[in-house]
């Protein structure tokens, strides 16, 4: 227990301390770019090949400028020198933002193939968690890590980069890294992230170990295995999965994996079946205290990156609630929400499966492409439904808590809590963790997203109120009487402080 205060102390160090000292580093790294003209000149002179193609390009440029109207020369030769440089604070943004960083991926010493993968995913700079965690994760000798960071701030990419950096590429058929996730959808998603980040890494092999994915008797023959604990445990038991050469074991949504009785047991058994592993990584957006202790046992001697409770919500997610006249009235209100704002994809969380089906019918009538996922669907069916949503073939996903965690579809811009998340016996108390994970499906990587929670009676109102108090957030009330007014409120809420800046207040 004495470690907890120490851990928070080190958190403060890591999160606020270096940022201040980094300002200098940024100044120095910033100045050279001012004189980029000469450096690029040097480049051209240095490589004759480049110079040649340059000339060719020049020919085309001339051809372009020859016939076509001259492009608007907003920048003459004249005005360039007299411009005022952007304030350093603006340039770097808010130091407190979870996406703030001054480093580049290159500076973190990530290998070229992985870098290309990151660039092709439109990643430009590491997020704060990546900037803090990657030097620790990639350092030698490998050290365990327990890392907490807000939803949508790049945790998955951080551990995938680590895994890809640790592999021995001369042994493509030897499992070397295992990543566990609480649901098959999430495992599939992580598998996808490994493939995307590793798309330019030669000889990488990835395999999913989820129910139905590995045939009986077939060997698991990929360097990276991503799976759910139960299936992985079975595969190891049946000797289909050779775990004698494990370098990294990673648990995503670690609090969920270690907390739930079933999953917690399974994870521990998996760990015990692995004879030796260099590095154990635990990642999640939430780490309740009681799970933290267990996590420290599971991943001994780990570096820890933690957040305070009121830092947990992401500023880009605008949280509102809708006061509905009755449980039944929610259908129409839900349908009217679309049109109030620009919505890419959206997720609606409900408690019961039959509510899901009824909402699906209502929204389909309105012209939406809707899919619903809940436990009534079978494994591979669920995979293809989620894939439809991920690819944008369907833009509304209605689901129960199975998908509350981890699912990352970058274009999701609205999350609806059609029912307030509850936990405990007969749903007696509100469930703030699930609320946080649910709304974390939007506002991914610094984008703006909206969450709207529906309340209609005293119980639901009180529950939402408790959740708001738990995280110390203000929820904006929406009205269903005057949609013009509601539209305006929503517009203003979305406009108000942009992503990541809420941590100032």
């Amino acid at each position, binding site marked *: 227990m004495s470690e907890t205060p120490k851990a928070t102390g080190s958190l403060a160090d890591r999160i606020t301390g270096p940022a201040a000292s980094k300002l200098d580093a940024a100044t120095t790294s910033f100045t050279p770019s001012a004189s980029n003209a000469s450096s690029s000149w040097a480049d051209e002179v240095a490589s004759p090949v480049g110079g040649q193609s340059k000339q060719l390009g020049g020919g085309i440029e001339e051809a372009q400028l020859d016939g076509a109207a001259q492009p608007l020369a907003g920048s003459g030769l004249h005005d360039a020198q007299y411009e005022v440089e952007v304030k350093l604070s603006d340039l770097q943004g808010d130091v407190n933002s979870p996406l703030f960083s001054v480093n580049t991926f290159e500076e973190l010493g990530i290998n070229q193939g992985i870098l290309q993968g990151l660039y092709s995913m439109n990643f430009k*700079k590491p997020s704060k968690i990546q900037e803090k965690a990657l030097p620790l994760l990639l350092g030698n000798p490998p050290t365990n890590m327990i890392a907490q960071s807000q939803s949508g701030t790049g945790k998955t990419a951080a551990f995938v980069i680590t895994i890809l950096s640790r592999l021995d590429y001369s042994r493509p058929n030897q499992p070397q890294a295992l990543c566990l996730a609480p649901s098959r959808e999430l495992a599939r998603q992580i598998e996808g992230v490994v493939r995307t980040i590793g798309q330019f890494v030669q000889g990488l092999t990835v395999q999913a170990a989820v129910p139905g994915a590995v045939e009986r008797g077939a060997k698991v023959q990929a360097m990276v295995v991503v799976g759910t604990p139960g299936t992985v445990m079975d595969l190891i038991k049946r000797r289909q999965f050779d775990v004698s050469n494990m370098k990294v074991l990673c648990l995503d949504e670690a609090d969920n994996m270690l907390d739930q009785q079933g999953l917690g047991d399974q994870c521990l058994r998996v760990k015990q079946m692995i004879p030796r592993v260099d590095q154990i990584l635990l990642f999640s957006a939430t780490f309740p205290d009681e799970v933290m202790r267990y996590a420290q046992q599971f991943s001994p001697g780990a570096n820890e990156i933690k957040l305070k409770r009121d830092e947990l919500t992401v500023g880009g997610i605008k949280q509102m609630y809708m006061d509905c006249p009755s449980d039944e009235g929610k259908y129409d209100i839900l349908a009217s929400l679309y049109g109030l704002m620009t919505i890419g994809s959206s997720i609606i969380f409900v408690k019961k499966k039959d509510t899901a089906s009824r909402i699906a019918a209502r929204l389909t009538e309105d012209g939406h492409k809707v899919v619903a996922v809940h436990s009534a669907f079978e494994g591979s069916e669920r995979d293809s439904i989620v894939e439809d949503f991920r690819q944008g073939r369907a833009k509304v996903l209605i689901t129960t808590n199975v998908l509350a965690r981890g699912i990352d579809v970058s274009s999701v811009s609205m999350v609806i809590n059609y029912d307030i998340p509850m936990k405990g016996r007969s749903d007696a108390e509100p469930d703030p963790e699930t609320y946080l994970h649910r709304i974390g499906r939007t506002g991914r990587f610094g984008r703006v997203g909206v969450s709207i929670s529906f309340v209609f009676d005293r119980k639901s109102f009180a529950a939402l109120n408790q959740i708001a108090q738990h995280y110390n957030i203000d929820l904006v009330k929406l009205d269903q009487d005057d949609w013009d007014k509601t539209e305006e409120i929503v517009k203003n809420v979305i406009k108000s402080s942009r992503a990541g800046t809420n941590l100032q207040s």
Partner: protein
Amino acid sequence: MAPTSFPGVSSSPPPSNSNNDNTEDKMDDYERRWRERNSEETHKIALAAALARHNEIRERALGILQLEQLREEAEILRQKRIQTEERVKLETQRAMEQLRIREEENKARQIPQPPPRVPTPPPAIPPAVQPKQPDNATTSASQQANQPPPAPAPQQPSSSNASQTSQTKATPQGTIQQHLNQPNAFQPSQSQPIASQPPKQQPTVSDAIQKQAETPANQANQNPQLAQAPATATTAPQHPQNPSHTPQAGETSSAHTQKPQNLHESVDRYVTIHKNLKEVRKAIKERGEKDAQFKKKAGEMRRAITRSVGQLTGERGANKVPTDTIVAQLEASLGISTVLEAVHSQPYPPELVMASKPERGPQGTLNNGEHMPLLTIYLLNILAKSAIAQFCSEAGANPKTADPIGVILVSVFAQRRFSWRGRSLIDIVIAKFRILCPVLFGVRGNDKTEEGRAKLGWKKDQNGNWISEQEHNDRMTGLGAGYASICLRDFSKSQLFNPWPATNYWFSLASITCTRPDDTSSTQFVVLKAMIDNHTAHFLRIYGDMGVRALHVALEDFPHKAAAGNVAASSLQVLAAKLRRDTGLTLEVK
């Protein structure tokens, strides 16, 4: 051993300690030395002497070496200085030459173009865009050929209109050339009074609308037109003001042949259009404040459009419901499908939101009058607005979602029902791109300066701070992808004419890649990547080998212009690698 010291081979005479006899002494000395010639002492002394000598020589050598090094360094520095001088000189020369070129081009632009051109469209490659005027004879001829019943229009068909009709048949080049000219072909309507009305009556939108709303006399004046605008849409135009129109047509065409405008001005025209559109929104809002029923109806239509744009997906045939909804709202505003009192709105002169004013189309052209309903313009604006918002947020996160939005946008704006005098109102959309993503129009700026950011369309938040780099990049990605999805539409099998053909894409591509190294910005790289990624198939279908060459310039050459370590430029290069891997498209030039 005796305490005396013994000289080595080269040492001075030793001090004797015993005798006075000199020769004996010498003999003694010699013998002693002979005796001790192999003793350890002697060797040590000899070695010490050798070491001293060695050190002396070594130090001298070191000194010489240092001098030599200094000399060499000086020489290198001198060479460097010469090189630098040379470079500065050359760069200055280059800059001066460029200035001169620019001046010459400016001069060239002032030269009036000779009006007619050879009557057959040249089979030149598409990119050869030339600011020539469309030829009256050609286009009207082809227009006649295109329309089986040769309707002798009361008024002379305008060049633009005619060429629009001819476009259905014309080659891509024809489309391109004609279209590029479109924005420039006419005087900006701002400076041009509407033929049918006193010049002072409609300087700006708000004026027009306010006057209509406030002065009853004026309203009475306008009312016939209000009712007429929808009517003209369905029936043949029998406009009472036709006669007064003809002289004006002549005026304009002579005006545009005399004074071709350069792109600079027409690009600026979009800024004006953007302002006018704000006035349109204000006018609708003001009307809503007075008329609750109108407000409710307009709000519902607006939300229906926003919702429908949000529903679009990339699946084939999946967008029927949302498309129908959008079209239904627009039709309702025109008064075609409903006769709802509430949706009738003031008339509005569409040329205020167009880059140039089209002449009246031939008989049978829809919306051939002086006005269109304000509400229609408003809803087209809302459609453009929600599409752009969708680009910024959704396509910024996932650029693939831009395409279906672009398809619907272009297909709605291409419809004759929603065009004015046969010309699409797509300038409403383009004006928004002009404001939000100026890079597409050749505007350049420095990401790291206040002015530069303002020029690049870098948004500020409510507190007046620049939005973060990440957000900016997202927006630019979405807008780049969105612009490409509008430009690269294939109209070869369509009856309609392409309101914003692919030459505009080429133009943006060219004006970004032609940027001088020190004018490049990350924003350009981001936009360029978004424009190209996922759109190469469309682009190459239209431009073929020339497209491959253009991609080479954009993906291989242009990133080299960036400062070393520019991540946005690197991801452009990664895009080239990805194309090579996924499609086998190699951009290297042999």
